[in-house]
């Protein structure tokens, strides 16, 4: 049984369906990557899993519990962490305060968790007192991931974590994401840099027009001729 199991998800804005009978799942300690062309409904599928959109059909099961009708903030409490694509840090708060806000629902030892994040992202320790708005794009993404990690989630959801960062920073972010998965956290992410992301993926989902076109391990998808030609640029 996967940690997250979303099946038959169908939903959209207004009348039209953006995602149609889409399924996503991820196991503990594994990385699942959602790729696909623009407008395929990748981000929408993520929002649907996190409850930011109401499903017309389908359901979401997390850790054996049906959470289809749970509000997003309550999903944080059951162990899901979400990093949105845009506006994912508190720009006027310092790096340290951003992390503290991430742990808002945790009454337990925040400072210990904070140290772990600083270990994972050493640059953040250096900039702990700076407003997050003054950081570079890559550093901001680290703050965003760090903030979501503060609740000690069992599932980390990332919506295009490498959007707008340089290739070097991207590689580093991917490395960190692998580190996070190695600690036993399940990671599910949407990525534009499809081939690099599939390289670290245990599970890959190729979404087209809101439905699963290909689902397999990252390696198999990378080797698949049709996937390569149509979605990975050759």
């Amino acid at each position, binding site marked *: 049984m996967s940690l997250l199991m979303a099946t038959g998800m169908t939903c959209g804005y207004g009348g039209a369906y953006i995602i149609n009978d889409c399924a996503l799942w991820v196991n503990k300690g594994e990385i699942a990557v959602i790729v696909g062309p623009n407008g395929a409904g990748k981000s929408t599928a993520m929002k649907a899993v996190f409850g930011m959109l109401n499903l017309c059909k389908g359901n979401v099961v997390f850790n054996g519990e049906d959470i289809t009708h749970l509000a997003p903030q309550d999903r944080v409490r059951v162990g899901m962490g979400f990093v949105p694509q845009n506006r994912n840090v508190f720009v006027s708060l310092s790096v340290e305060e951003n992390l503290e*806000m991430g742990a808002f629902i945790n009454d337990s030892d925040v400072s210990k968790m904070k140290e772990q994040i600083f270990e994972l992202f050493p640059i953040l320790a250096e900039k702990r007192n700076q407003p997050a708005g003054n950081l570079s794009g890559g550093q901001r993404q680290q703050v965003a991931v760090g*903030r979501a990690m503060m609740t000690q989630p069992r599932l980390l959801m990332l919506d295009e974590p490498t959007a707008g960062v340089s290739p070097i920073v991207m590689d580093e972010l991917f490395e960190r994401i692998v580190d996070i998965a190695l600690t036993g956290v399940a990671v599910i992410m949407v990525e534009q840099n499809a081939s690099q992301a599939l390289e670290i993926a245990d599970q890959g989902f190729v979404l087209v027009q809101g439905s699963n076109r290909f689902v397999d391990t990252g390696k198999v998808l990378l080797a698949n001729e049709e996937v390569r030609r149509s979605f990975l640029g050759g």
Partner: protein
Amino acid sequence: MEIANAFALLTNFVILPAITYGAQLSLGALGVTIVFGILRFANFSHGELMSFGAMVTILTTHLLQTKGVSISPMPTALLALPAGILATIVIALLEDQIIFRFYRKNRSTPITFTIVSVGLMFFMAGLIRIIIGPNEHNFADGARFLISFRDFKAITGLDQGIAIRQTQLITLLVTLIVVISLFWFIYKTRWGKAMRAYSDNEDLALLSGINPERVVLIAWIIAGTLACIAGTLYSLDKIYKPFIFMQIMLPVFAATIIGGIGQPLGAVFGGFVVAFSEVTVTYSFKKFLAYLGPTNWEPEGLVQLLSTDYKYAVSFLVLILVLLVRPTGLIPGKTI
């Protein structure tokens, strides 16, 4: 001697009144800026909240006076202030629960909220006049001066004196305490940080598990407290007139915008900028220049930039000047 006289004159008629008035405006602007930061609308009814707070404090003061309770030489109003604060918090929370919550649930636009607050302003103004009447109330008792004009002259031997009224000192001390505790709250405590986070990015605050209704509740408690203190200090220092609180929203809004909307530090700063401009521009510098100029000379006119009738216009003048140079306020705030 001439120079000392000139500066005594300036201190007495410009610097001291401007600092006092600036502190009062700052407290008002802080309330407006906090409501704006959290609820994202310009609250026109804040002036009436100030008036309501002052009114309850005055009524409590009168009650205490008839019972013979006194903390002389301090004004009795200080003793009555907590009652005023409590009542203002209650009315602010009632306003929110009965009126603003409805629009929050409907996800109304900020302009809707603003118009609603204008309506509420008129309602509250009417309510206040029904309760306390339209007349002036002078409720300052206790010692009037810390240093009187005559004492100062006797001590220093100058022709010009500096009189420090007790209410001026109380205004400054209370403002200092209030501002320090407010800043301690929003920068050092868990819920204070949560408020800043919510103000910064509502969606992300929600994702972090911050309860928005709780944040709104705290914002109104702070706004009510600040409004009552600002209203009481203003009335204590000058006089309580119900209609003045509609006019005072002009300089208060100007201070909020000049400082940078949603920036608490900016609101404090803006309050003093507006107060100093208002007092300086409407002060007649004739005597001041006469002291500084050659002996037996004095300027022909009043050397007053604007008549005091225009003092509210000064706020706008400063507002426009500041916005031309720094469109988001002195400390960059939110853009509307």
